[in-house]
């Protein structure tokens, strides 16, 4: 049986923010190589998981990047409507990361 830990207990920073007016970008930044590699190698975080988690088609994910200099995994999605349009709920896109916090990562 594998042990699991929530992503929030492994990553140092988990955040979301506008990337321009039509996209929201998500940064997951790790405190060290070991934790970065643990999550990266687990393969848990990928386009399919993000699409499933946010209930969007994979075509709405514009970028998925592993960015080793910052020990980060990063992805970006197209917004349903541009930031601040009538009906938009988060002008800065800054509170869209919460579902990532409880992602269960196998740790052994």
């Amino acid at each position, binding site marked *: 049986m594998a042990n699991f830990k929530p992503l929030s207990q492994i990553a140092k*920073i988990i955040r979301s923010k506008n990337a321009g007016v*039509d996209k929201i970008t998500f940064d997951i*930044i790790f405190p060290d190589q070991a934790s970065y590699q643990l999550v990266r190698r687990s393969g848990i975080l990928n386009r399919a998981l993000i699409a499933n988690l946010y209930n969007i088609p994979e075509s709405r994910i514009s970028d998925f*990047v592993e960015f080793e*200099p910052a020990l980060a995994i990063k992805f970006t999605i197209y917004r349903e409507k541009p930031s*601040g349009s009538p009906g938009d*709920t988060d002008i800065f896109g800054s509170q869209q990361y919460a579902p990532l916090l409880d992602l269960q990562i196998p740790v052994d």
Partner: protein
Amino acid sequence: MAAVPKSLRFLCPNGHLGFAPLKTNSFYLGVQSRPDFILADSGSNDIGPIPLGSDVSTSPKEWQYHDLEHMLLAARKLGVPMIVGSAGDTGTNSRVDLFVEMIQDIARNHHIPKFRVGYFYSEVNPDYLRRKMEQGERVAGLDGRPDLTLEELEATDRIVAVAGIHPYIRLLDLGAEVIIGGRSSDSVIFAAPAIRAGFPEGLAYYLGKVLECASFNAEPYMGKESVIGEITHEDVKVTAMHPDQRCTVASVAGHAMYERSNPFYEHVLGGTLDMSRCRYEQWDERTTRVTGPVFRASPEWWVKLEGSGKVGERYVGIVGIRDPYIIANIDQVIAWAREQVRERFGDSGYELHYQLYGKNGVMGNLEPSRHTPHELGVVVYGIAPSAQMAEEVCLIGTRQMFYARLPEVKGTAGGVAFALDEVMRASPAYRWTINHTVRIDDPLELFPTFLTEAGV
């Protein structure tokens, strides 16, 4: 031109100047180290389309003045240039004028000896784009948008083009000691003086990229603190000025991806900064050194455009719900209220939006949680061509929730709790109509430059 210096140091006290005031202690620590330039970006499109569309700042005048005053007094005392880009959140012409006037007021109030102020505009006349489009030129959509149509152009109230280094260099050449820029890419505010002084473009644009949000490139997280970037012919070094902050490899590399869909590339007018081969090293306790950024010039001038168009006047209502049966049937409650609006105003010509705090008020359709809350906060938005109609749309849409006809409801004296009797006037609703690029012949074409004076 003077000989190329070995290095130049850039003090940046704030990112999105005006949105919150700069912190003075770390700023004056930076000033004491005698930087060669004092610079800040003042713009952001994070704030949504309303400030651009209605041509206002979202930053209070007092905070803008506060930051400009500290920067100007320090810059004039040191005798170094001060540069602010994307004036007043949006970089529209009125915001540039506002900042130039503030500089003149500050100079007068402090009896600063006369100095030259350069400024440039970034607004684009819609007719300019219409003519291009009628001649068959593309206004190409960014981020998955289709190319601009004449209909969307018609729906647009105000457009700014995003400047490159060029108007800044021109104003420095003209002898400007203070520059107030219209809408600009954040990085070019810093890159312009470095490139003009003879430093490599890749390092210069990288310098701007890493400094534009000030202390967001340092850790621990503390906004609005000063940082200093130093450029040489081999590297960029970035140092936190706040005694408790450090620019680390992680914080500096992490900043490269902040607010960007891709951490490796940054597009500006005239080319792309390629950061994919950047190397980051801890230089000293509070300084990180970066080498390896490369700038790739593009063969044509494609300028980014931002445009905002008005949707209508807007009113907002707020109600709360506690009855679990009503919460479970909230969709029917909303359907009832919508129907009452429809009976009064028909199917179109207005917008009515419900935001359900407690259910998916923050994430909308992205919300994965199906948890049932014990209470629900509902914000109702009514949008219509006139304020009077928007108020009535919103009022019906809010108040009729009270009267929703649910078959098994026990509470027959009102289905929602009112926090207020009335609905409230909000800012007009706007939307981003333009996030596009268009080809221009000359990088100064859309950015007329001007020189004036301040001081006594």
